[in-house]
Every structure is written in structure tokens, then in C-alpha cells.
């Protein structure tokens, strides 16, 4: 009986030691990540799935929407992060009104490096281009096609990648602090290439959000010579995004998925 007691005590101590060590290790691994990766980890938190939907307005008139989802998945190979992007916008293409649709998905590994990419840019006349990418050794190969015709093939370095929406990218990060600066490579579907988005957290202010006062962080993002100023909650929700020239007539405002995806 006495030995049984010792055995149970040892088992409890080992169990508690193992669990507390795992908590410590998990915390240590998060704090050893760079700010971007740590921000994405806290953005997801206990959730497996998060999304944000924005209405696109030109001169106070709604001209489209853009939606972004991020999902943590657990395949046999390990942890994967799947991001999807969906944008629809009315534009004037060579003086002719067109509706531009961009749909895509990017699958990342645990370290936010890309595994696969697929994007489709289409208009009312059909698909313009299809972009696909996959990991090839120490590179990430990207191929641009129009129908069966290969237009372009590039090899990108295997570093972290974020999926852009054709405008200025919004990072899935929470826990911003004033003074933080992030430089994250983003894939731009319109330019069919990769460019670095530089995000700087300017200030923390109280603004009116959804009719009530809330604390937001003011972010300035520079991407391909365009500057955007965004309101983001401490939890990482993008509330509003205003653009500098040449997109200064555009404005993004947060809305629900239902509102975004319903047909006019």
C-alpha cells in the first residue's frame, strides 16, 4: 500500500512536471519567434479559423469587397496554415467597366513559409490568368498561365510569404505595440510577384467603432509605392483602411461575410 502511494505520487509529480515543462516550452518558443510570427500565433490564439471581410468604397460608393481567412490545420505532416483570399471590385479597364475577381489560397508550413499557392484572376469575360506555386527544394516555384499558355515562371526564395489582395496587404497579426515595425514579403496577384510590405504602428487611439468607443492602433503600411493608413483593434481586426495616392479615392471598411458576399 505504501509503495502504491509512492508510485502514485511519483506519477503525479512526473505528469505535472511534464505538463508545466510543455507550457514553459510553448511560451519560450512563442517568445523566440520574430514579431510577425509571434503576432500571427497570437492572432489565431485558441481559434482554428479567423476571417475578415472589408467593403471597398470609391468616393463613398461601394465598388466591391475583399475577404481573407486564415485557418490552422493538422494534417499528418504537421501543422499547416491555410489562408484564402477573395476579392471582387468594379474597375474601369481601358475606359470599359469591368468586374475583377481575385480568388486564391496559400498554404504555409508552421514557420509561415509557403507550401502551395493557387490564384485565379478573372473578369466578366472569363479567367485572365492563373497563378500556381509549389515548393521545389529550397525554392518556391511560381508559374503564371493564361489558359494552357505559360506566361511566366519565377523561383522565389523560401521565406515567409503573405497573400496580398491586389491593394495594400493586411497582416493577420494581433498584439501590435506602438513603434513596432514589420517587414513581410507579400505575394501581389496583380503584379504577379513578391514585394515587401512595411507596416509601422504609429499610435494607439480611441475611435468610434460600430457606434461605440474602442481602442484602435493606427498602422501605416507601405507597399509598392502606395501608403495606406489602417485602424486595427488590439485583437488584430482591421476596421478601416485609407489609401494615399494614387488610390486616395478608395476606402476599405469592415463588414460581415454575409454583407460582403451577397450579390447586389
Amino acid at each position: 500500500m505504501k509503495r502504491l502511494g509512492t508510485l502514485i505520487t511519483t506519477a503525479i509529480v512526473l505528469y505535472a512536471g511534464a505538463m508545466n515543462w510543455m507550457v514553459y516550452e510553448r511560451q519560450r518558443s512563442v517568445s523566440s519567434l520574430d514579431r510577425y510570427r509571434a503576432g500571427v500565433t497570437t492572432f489565431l490564439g485558441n481559434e482554428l479559423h479567423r476571417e475578415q471581410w472589408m467593403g471597398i468604397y470609391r468616393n463613398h460608393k461601394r465598388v466591391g469587397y475583399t475577404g481573407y481567412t486564415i485557418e490552422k490545420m493538422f494534417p499528418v505532416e504537421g501543422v499547416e496554415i491555410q489562408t484564402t483570399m477573395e476579392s471582387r471590385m468594379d474597375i474601369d479597364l481601358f475606359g470599359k467597366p469591368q468586374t475583377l475577381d481575385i480568388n486564391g489560397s496559400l498554404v504555409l508550413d508552421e514557420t509561415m513559409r509557403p507550401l502551395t499557392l493557387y490564384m485565379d484572376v478573372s473578369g466578366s469575360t472569363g479567367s485572365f490568368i492563373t497563378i500556381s506555386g509549389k515548393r521545389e527544394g529550397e525554392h518556391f516555384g511560381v508559374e503564371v498561365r493564361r489558359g494552357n499558355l505559360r506566361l511566366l515562371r519565377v523561383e522565389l526564395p523560401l521565406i515567409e510569404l503573405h497573400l496580398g489582395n491586389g491593394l495594400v496587404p493586411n497582416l493577420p497579426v494581433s498584439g501590435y505595440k506602438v513603434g513596432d515595425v514589420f517587414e513581410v514579403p507579400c505575394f501581389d496577384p496583380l503584379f504577379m510577384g513578391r514585394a515587401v510590405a512595411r507596416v509601422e504602428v504609429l499610435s494607439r487611439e480611441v475611435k468610434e467603432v460600430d457606434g461605440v468607443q474602442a481602442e484602435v492602433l493606427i498602422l501605416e503600411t507601405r507597399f509598392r509605392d502606395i501608403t495606406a493608413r489602417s485602424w486595427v483593434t488590439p485583437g488584430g481586426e482591421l476596421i478601416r483602411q485609407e489609401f494615399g495616392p494614387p488610390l486616395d479615392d478608395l476606402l476599405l471598411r469592415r463588414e460581415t461575410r454575409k454583407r460582403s458576399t451577397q450579390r447586389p
Partner: protein
Amino acid sequence: MNPALALIRMRVASLRNGAQNVGKDSIAKVFVVLFGLGNVIGIGYWVSAVSFRFIESFPAFGASLNAKIVALLFFALFVLVVLSTVIVTYSTVFLARETDYLFQHPIPPRTIFFLKLAEAIAFSSWATLFLCMPVLVAFGVLRKAGPLYYLQCAGILSAFLMFAGFTGATISLLLAPVLRRLTPLQFLGLGAMALVLLGWTFLYSFGLWGFKGDNNLLLLDRFTSRLTAMHSPYFPSQWASAAVLAAAAGNHREVLFHGSTLLANTLLFLPMLAWYSDRLYGRQWVSLRGFSAPDRKGPIPVVGTPAARAAQRGPLAWRALGKGPLPAITLKDVLLFARDPAQVSQSILFLVLMVIYSLSLLNIPDYFSSPTLRLVIYFANLGAVCMILSSFTSRFLFPLISLEGRAFWILGLAPLPRTYLLHQKAFFGLGVSLFLGIVLVTVSNAVLNSTPGLFLGAIYTMFLAAVCLTALSTGLGSAYPVLDEDNPARIAVGLGGTLNFFASALSLAVLITLQAFPYLIFGVDPGPWVGVSHLLSLAFTGLLSAFAFGLGARALARREF
């Protein structure tokens, strides 16, 4: 027979007898208790569901704020259950009469310790379990969680309450030898210091002074964000809230991880407490029961000297009451109260609740400025203040007769009718509850800037409420005494205590409805109808008090001791 098994059998038999006695009680009493409990659970669910839905309706931050509220709920529960277990463990493990009785038998201290500890934790946390589960169910419904969520929540909540209970018990065991060496003044001083420190941390976390009244959600968000302990991955409430949030999101890996962390740390208490019970419990129990306590009183004054005469006279305040049975019995009640650390600490907690409530009124939103909305706030405040007073009378006045316990025969031998005892308890209780109620209603109405008419109306209502509540508590306390129980907290949550609580709530609802009806029917300026409502309230108070006193007096007169 194994002593542990024998004690468990005794407890099971006691529970079975209790359950059988429920059937013997009046159907009305059982119905009121069950109806009241059902209402508490139902209202808890409804209020939580409405609040969660309201916050979630702000798409930008609603979901994250709701998650923070769940974290805050676990944080608050942790603090409350730990505090409650500290007090209950001290009185159950060291001071309870049953513990003395068990020590007279050949039962190992470990068995006694774990039996009393289990009782203390169960007693401290059962109400939390009942109140918290509807909130978590409402959260699961909001997040459209699957059936597994509810099972996971029940498991997490149980492990969490066990952890909080063990933490409180450990603190109590560590503090017990220190408390024994403190004088009452030192104890109160330390308690006040701890309260000031906790209060300052609480108010600092709110950032209360930097806000105008209409920023309530921002205030809540900032409060939940600033409590760093709440978000620490090493803090137990964070393990529990993270597990619940992960369960709501269907993230079973995270549920397993956080749930296992919580369970592992809960189990870790078992070998530590087992070691304590084997090595130290017996000795500490002996020293705390005073069998070997050092004499702190100092030299006894010589008979006939001024010091001896002063010692015989007693405090000036008691001499002012004069001689006779009333000051004597009242002095006895006050001394018994002051000598019970559980009573003193819980009354301090009650005072803290009053202060927090009064401070929260400072933040009434600016848009409650129209006469109608101000009336709504006025009556809501009146209801809240009366409910605070009701919890006071249920917790402290209801057990007064029961606390006479087996020594009731001493009072029974005194040349006094038994109804005198009932009236003494009632007047003593009325004095205390009127004082607390009037202070609270005056402060709250001053903060709310009520008009003179409403101010006087509030004081009048509070007077009637104090009479009703005192009459119910003492009347029902005499009608349903628990004379074999020496823990007042247990007496207050027994069947009679629960009946008293719901009867008090019901009588307050009637009283405030009577006071509010002219405003409901005739608007903000009901004229002479206010006087009619005052008269009706007075009549209701008179009838209720006469009924409750009559019930208590008859039961007390018939009782055999």
C-alpha cells in the same frame, strides 16, 4: 472497518436522510426552493446569453471581448473561490465541532483532514458550479459549439474549482499558525491592508478616472486587457479559460493541452496535502484549538484596585445600554460574532461588496439623463441595494437562532419568554441592517443625484425593506433552525436558508413594484399616488412582518430542546 470508508458511509447516510426529510417538509417550501433555484439558473443563462449576444453584435471587437469576458469570469471565480475556501477551510478543518468529535476516535489525522477538506471545497464551490455552468452554456450556444463542448466545459470547470479549492486550502493552512499569533487588532489591520492593496489594483486595472460615462465597453475592454495575471500562460484561470475557448472553437488539441495542464497541477496538491496531513495537521489542530495556546492576557489585576474594577465594568458602549437581558444577550451575540474569524472575514467581504457597488455608480453613462431613464436607474439601484441587504440578512441574521445550538437550554432556563429571544434577535438585526441599508441608499442616491422626493422615498423604502428582511430572516430562522450545525455559512445555505433567500427576494420584488407602480401608470410625476403606494408598502410590510414573526414565535414555542 476502514475509518475512511466508515466516514464516507456516515456522510452518505446523512445525505440520504436529508433527502428523505425533504419529502417531509411542506410542499410549498420545497417548491419555493426548487422554483428559486430554477429561476437562478434560468436567469443566469438568459442574462449571459443576452449580454454575450449584445457584445458579439459589435463585429470589430465583439468576439475578442467576449473571449476576454470568459477569461475574466474564470479569473474572478478563482479569486472568489480561493477567498471563500481560505475562510471555510479554516473553520471546517480546525474549528468545527465535528472535527473535535472525530479526533476523539481512533481515526488517522489524514482521513479527518481529507474528509473535512472535501467538505470545505464542495461547500465553497457548489454555488459557483451552479452559477457558472449556465454562463458557459450560453457562451457555447452563442458560438454554436457541438455537444462535446458542454462535456468538456463540465470537466474543465470541475478541475478548475478543485484547483481553486486546493489553493485556498493551502493558503489557509499556511496562514493558520500565523493568525494564531495575531491579536484581533493586528488581524484587522493586516486584513484592511490586504483589502486596500487589492482594491487599488482593481481600480487601477479599470483606469476608472480617465473615462466619461458612455465608454462602458471600452472600460471593460481596457480592464480585461490590463489584468496581466489573467492573460499569463502560467496562471490557472488562463488554463481554464483557454480550454473553454478552444472547446467552443472545436480545437480539441488545445482543450487537451490546457485541460491536462489544469488537471496535472490540481493533482499535484494531493501528495503535498497528504504529507501535511501526516506530519503537521494533528499538531496544528491541537495548537489552534487552544489546548496549548500561550496566555496573551498578561497579569490579572488585584481585586479591589481601579484596574480590576475597570476590567469588571466592561466597555463603555455596553454600559450605556444599561442593565437587563437585552444588552446581555446582544453582547453575547456580538462577542460570538467577533470571535468567529469566518464571520468577521465574510462580513468584511460584504462591506467590500458594498463599497465596490457604490464606486460602480460613479460610472453611470451620460445618456441616462432623461427623467424616465433616471427613474429606471433609481429603481434599479433601489432593487440592487435591497438585494445586497437581503444577502446580508440571509447570511448573518437567519443563522442567529440556529447558532444558539445545543446550548439553547441555557437561554431556555433564563426567566424570559422565548418570544423575547426572537424579538431581541430581530431588534439587533434591524439595527445593523437599517444602519447598513440607510448608508448604502444615501450614498448611492447622492451619487445618482436623485431629487429630494425620490431621495426620501428611497430611504423610506429601505426602512420598510430592512423591516421585511429582518422579520423574514429571524422568523424563518426560528421556524427552520439547524441546531446541530455550528457553521453559520452552512446554516444559511440549507433548505430553510434557501427558502428565506427566495422569500426575501420575492418580498423585495413586491415592495419595489408597489413603490414603482404610480410611476409605471402615471409617468414621471404621479402626484398623490406616491402617497398611496407608500401606504400600501407600509401595509404589506406590516402584514409580512406579523406573519413571519408569528410563524417563528409559534415554532420556537413548540420546539423541544
